[in-house]
């Protein structure tokens, strides 16, 4: 771990000002991912701005009947919130499918969106990784890729976004609210928040230097039946091979997003439209541009079967 200076910000304005245009400074929220990465010398900030005192820990009703979730609301608190459980159960189920109880107590809403990939080569600083060390190459492309992306990847990177919460939020059409270093705010649809790697896998998302996530907005409840089905080798505390978040209406229409398959929560509008035609039609559209490796090709069939299970449950409701 590189030595760093530490500052505790008392407000959002103070926090964004403290990071400002310093690209060697980082915000610290729950720290469940950042501190690990610092210990492994994968992240090497020189300055840390701790935002835990910035008051972003509230869940509020919005004017249009949705929720505004403060960036510091813990995974545990968010998944247990009565309004979330009642109106957005896909989100509760997604969060509770992730990590462990201890981690969910500490992990935050904003931080979780910024969780970095779990690619083994990203984690081993002896290995080439364009995400960790731009231009060094990608050891994973021809390597151990069972867990890695089947779609949305590039010749520079096949990392997956590993989280669950964001997959649930994606199917809810969530919007990320941020404040930039100059104090201005903006709203970014979650669909546009995570980047595909292209030639710059080091950029996981569209945040600018010094830009802080302040909240996540959920539109008014979508109704329907909510599902989060996570497929993994062990029953708990494991990243998804494939996960399916779905909201299915009584008429069979709905929305579906996939986790564990791409550098971002994977949702394709044309695939949503095919939900009434069954899992095969959905997968054909959602994974039309898939470029799997030999080791992870199974994920596409797995996604189809997992979705079929979800649709069967929806039918039998």
């Amino acid at each position, binding site marked *: *771990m*590189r*030595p760093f200076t530490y500052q505790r910000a008392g407000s959002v304005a103070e926090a964004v000002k403290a990071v400002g245009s310093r690209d060697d400074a980082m915000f610290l929220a729950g720290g469940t991912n950042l501190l690990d990465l610092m*210990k*492994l*010398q994968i992240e090497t900030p020189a300055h840390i701005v701790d935002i835990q005192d910035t008051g972003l820990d509230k869940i509020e009703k919005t004017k249009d009947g949705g929720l505004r979730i403060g960036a510091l609301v813990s995974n545990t608190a968010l998944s247990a919130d009565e309004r979330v459980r009642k109106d957005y159960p896909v989100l509760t189920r997604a969060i509770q499918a992730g990590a462990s109880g201890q981690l969910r107590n500490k992990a935050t809403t904003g931080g979780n969106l910024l969780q970095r990939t*779990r690619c*083994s*080569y990203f*984690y*081993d600083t*002896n*290995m080439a990784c364009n995400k960790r060390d731009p231009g060094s190459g990608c*050891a994973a492309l*021809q*390597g*151990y890729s*069972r867990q890695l992306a089947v779609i949305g990847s590039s010749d520079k990177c096949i990392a997956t976004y590993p989280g669950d919460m964001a997959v649930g939020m994606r199917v809810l059409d969530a919007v990320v609210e941020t404040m930039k270093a100059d104090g201005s705010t903006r709203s970014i649809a979650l669909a546009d928040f995570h980047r595909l790697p292209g030639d710059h896998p080091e950029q996981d998302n569209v945040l600018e230097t010094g830009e802080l996530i302040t909240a996540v907005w959920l539109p008014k409840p979508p109704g329907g039946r909510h599902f989060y*089905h996570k*497929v*993994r*080798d*062990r*029953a*708990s*505390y*494991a*990243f998804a*091979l494939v996960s399916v978040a779905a909201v299915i209406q009584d008429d069979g229409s709905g929305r579906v997003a996939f986790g564990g398959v791409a550098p971002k929560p994977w949702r394709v509008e044309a695939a949503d439209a095919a939900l009434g035609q*069954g*899992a095969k039609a959905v997968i054909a559209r959602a994974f039309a541009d898939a470029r799997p490796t030999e080791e992870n090709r*199974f994920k596409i*069939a*797995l996604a189809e*079967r*997992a979705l*079929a*299970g979800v649709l*069967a449950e929806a039918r039998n409701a």
Partner: protein
Amino acid sequence: MKFEAPAGSNLFDRSQIVGKSTPRIDGPLKTTGQAPYAYERHDMANQAYGWVVGSAIAKGLIASMDVSDAQSAPGVIAIVSAPDTKPVGKGIANNAPLFGGPEIAHYHQAIACVVAETFEQARYAASLIRTTYDRSQGAFDLAKVAPDAPLAKGDDSKSTLGDFDAAFAAAPVKLDARYTTPDESHAMMEPHATIAAWEGDKLTLLTSNQMVAWAKQSMGKILGIDPANVRIDSPFIGGGFGGKLFIRADAVMAALAAKKAGRPVKIALQRPLIANNTTHRHATIQHIRIGAEKDGKITAISHENWSGNQNGKNGEDATLQTPKLYAGANRLTANYVATLDLPEGNAMRAPGEAVGHLALEVAMDELAEKLGMDPVELRIVNEPKMVPGSPEKKFSDRNLVRCLREGAERFGWSRRSKTPGSMRDGRWLIGMGVAAGYRAGPTEASGAHVKLDADGRITVETDMTDIGTGSYTIIAQTAAETMGVSLDQVKVELGDSRYPKSSGSGGQWGAASSTAGVYAACVNLRRAIGEKLGFDADAATFEDGSIRSGNRSYKLTEAGALSADGEMTYGDFKDDYDVGTYAGHFVEVGVDAYTGVTRIRRMLSVCDAGRILNPLSARSQVIGAMVMSAGAALMEELAVDPRFGFFVNHDLAGYEVPVHADIPTQDVVFLDTLDDIVTPMKAKGVGELGICGPGSAIANAIYNATGIRIRDYPLTLEKYLSEMPAVA
């Protein structure tokens, strides 16, 4: 004391304490955080922190190493670097080089150690070391090199009986299949950790090691010093599973760094180093052929095994159980070891047998299917009278058939559908599987020192270790029983090389051997008391703090303070016997008809291991081993990247072991058997028996649930998803 004839009736047949479920006497120390684990010891002043740097390549040479920035980083006290250090020696059963010189034999081999005032300073300074390498080609792919692998070194690497080829050719029913098992990591909770300190030429290691006497000898060999000048202290061990049988880089680097720093140095191997720096269970390729008559009687059985290791030495011999389990006149076993440049393969819980069962016990299930026989009955039909692979030998005590029959009854085996894929519970396909288990029940010489104080309290001292197994408690039970005092009158001190040499913990020999050694020492103490008070101790009864000899009676306290050494050794009569432990393992699984995910629903193991010294801790051993076997069957695999020659998933996020949610109800039943041949206690180990078989029962249950047979472990869903029935 030498054990030279079958035990016969003795005091343990009337035992009040041995054989009774007893909570760990060291439990309160552990639950209150007071048990001194190696890295957390404070009984050595002025400790500095060491950080080990691992090689970035798997094979080749260090071309250059620049430590100047690290040297001048804040808090740095000393740096030990491989190019500046002459290669150290090798320890007992140590295959890969441990440290020194430019040569790299495997990924994450230790190449430097930075010592600093704080842990964080040492870690940061280590990141400033700049190393360049000359990479060379290596052999990293077992499947590629296995066909040319020679037989393992040693006399028993190939053994034949009768004419396998002819009998197999003539057999009306044949099974011929190949199985593979991957490299596995011990993944114990406590990393390898050591605090080292020098006083002149005397070295003390506060460490975490299963075999104190081996560690002492090994450190002498490694550092080129007199082992008499080495003290090892390892009173508590946070899991070992064979990974801590030997000296590893933590101890070597701590010793070298402490010398250079001129003060004690503590090191814990960081988790990402453990998979590649230390040892692992080797991957295997196994070929099994079995020929049988139509009534299920085996006429021919062959088990060939391939694994690989550094220097082509010491592979994983998966054939070990095959000469023991089933009858059959024509036999072949062969064990081949290729040379690989992966990190060192070495002992992991039931080396050989754990993965041998994963193949053999699935082969038996496949044979039963071909015969149209119940797999429990197939095993019973082939129950041998003499040791099948060594017909000159008798079984000391063997109750495998009882294990299988009682297990089948308790588990409700009769409710299993013979037709695969025909039991269902909602979206889950349900299957049941069975496997037999065999694991040797060895004993090793073991000694102890026993003291009686003036208040009638007993203290036992031995270099035996407790790796979470419950050694403290069974040793206390043994001393209490033999000396006729209550358990709370006994204190047990373990793990210090200043105490008499014991068996140590490994190979499932610890419980039987160390308690026999303590019994021997107690018998000598009883005799010393008898001599002092004037009675024949061997004819006396020690009970409730008193001694009865004929019509006379004494209080133990009348003897005053006395002590005695003792050691149990073993006579040749044992060579006429095969001493083994046996189990019948039963598992029910559910396989998700949609995703192919397998989840275990029930597990039962019925065990035959002689007297169970402490049923509470023995059960804990068996359920732990069942969990480990479930991991081997369903998820554990060190993934090899053959381009770079290393295990890629080298942390606990990448190397998945079962969590609580994976493990359902586990039932363990111990048969009330006694083995007269093993020790006076008539007890055998169980710590490895529980990992021999449950994984194959899982594989067989998956077949019963789905009709799909997977022969490559772990049985992850991508290996059978395409064969699963279509879903709408």
